[in-house]
Structures are given as C-alpha cells and as structure tokens.
C-alpha cells in the first residue's frame, strides 16, 4: 500500500539522452512536488502542482518539464541530460497547498548521467 511511488528507482543513462521519471500517489492529495537532492544532500524544490496546475517553478532549466495528467500523477521529463543532472529526485504530495500540510515523500529515483 505504497502512498507515493516513483519509477524507476535507479536510472543510469548517457549524456544527451531524454528520460522520464514517474510519480503516483494514492492518498487523494491535490498537490504534488518534485525535489532534487544534490551530492551535498540538500533537498531543493523544483516544481509544485496543485490540481494539475503548475504552482511553483524554482528556476529549473527548461530541459526539465513536469507533466500532470491527473491529480494522482506528476511525471518529470528531462531532455538532453547533463552530468550535473545526476542526483536523487524525490516526488512528494500533500493534501493541498496550505503551509501547514505535511508532505509525504516517495522513495526517490537515483539518476546517474554518464
């Protein structure tokens, strides 16, 4: 009964390729997020979607394009992968955008760009 799931768990690819990471939540939440955890372990928000609409885009290169086909899914597509994109990407969801809402995290996707 995974609440927030991500696929794949590991992704190894060559520079220049295009790849997607999928995220699904079965909590009935309205809001979903993508975070990037860099080598220094800082978790930085990338995007936030509420009811399939983009709310936050934190100066992420436009090679990164989130897509939310419905409230339960927020996929991350990355074009022309670069070495610096290597990181762990976490998906999260919360009931809504209220700042008091707890976020529930997925297990992370480890992306390695060679």
């Amino acid at each position: 009964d995974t609440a927030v799931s991500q696929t794949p768990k590991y992704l190894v690819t060559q520079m220049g390729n295009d790849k997607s990471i999928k995220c699904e939540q079965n909590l009935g939440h309205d809001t979903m997020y993508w975070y990037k955890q860099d080598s220094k372990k800082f978790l930085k928000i990338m995007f936030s979607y509420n009811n399939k609409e983009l709310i936050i885009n934190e100066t992420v290169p436009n090679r990164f394009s989130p897509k939310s086909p419905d409230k339960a899914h927020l996929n991350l597509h990355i074009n022309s992968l670069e070495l610096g994109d290597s990181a762990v990407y976490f998906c999260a969801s919360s009931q809504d955008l209220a700042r008091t809402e707890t976020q529930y995290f997925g297990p992370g996707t480890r992306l390695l760009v060679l």
Partner: protein
Amino acid sequence: AQSVSQHNHHVILSEAASLELGCNYSYGGTVNLFWYVQYPGQHLQLLLKYFSGDPLVKGIKGFEAEFIKSKFSFNLRKPSVQWSDTAEYFCAPDPPPRGFNKFYFGSGTKLNVKP
C-alpha cells in the same frame, strides 16, 4: 542569502545518550518548521512540526524540538537515543509567502547509534 543550516553532518552516539541536532534558518516572517527523518532504505517521513503556540513541540518516537525565535533555531532533541534512531534527519523550514507549501531542506544530519 536565505538558507537553512544543520551544524552536524554526522553524529555518532551510544544507546541511551542524549541527542541534540542543531538547525538554524535565516528566513524572515512567520516560518513553519518541520523535521523529517529518513531511516535506512525508507522514505522521508515527518518527525514533528511547529506552526504556532507552545515553542516546545513533541513528535513521534520521543523526539521533541524547541523553536527559539530570537535565535532563528529549531533544534531537535531526544533524551535517550536507541539503536533504531539510526537515520538521517532533515530540518525543513517552510517560509512565507503564504499559500505555498514550499520546503527548504537542510543538508541533513546522519545519526549513527551504536548498540
């Protein structure tokens, strides 16, 4: 620059020792404060949170944190750690503007508890 800092990157304790992990942030305004924990091989999960009221907040598994506004700090404490507390701990302030649930996570503190 606005930021959050966790002073200890790696802490090693014996069981029954007391724990205090530091967290300082530099955001202005009313900041909601969270601590998240990631046990080995598991997801990030909420440990405790502070919005307003009593600055001493109780969380799960005997953890507590104290919000000191004048010091911009939200340190995590536990009087007596157990081996099962071995995990990575992330401080996450959620600063204004209102209406956006947007966390800025610290770099994490890895806690190893020796049995």
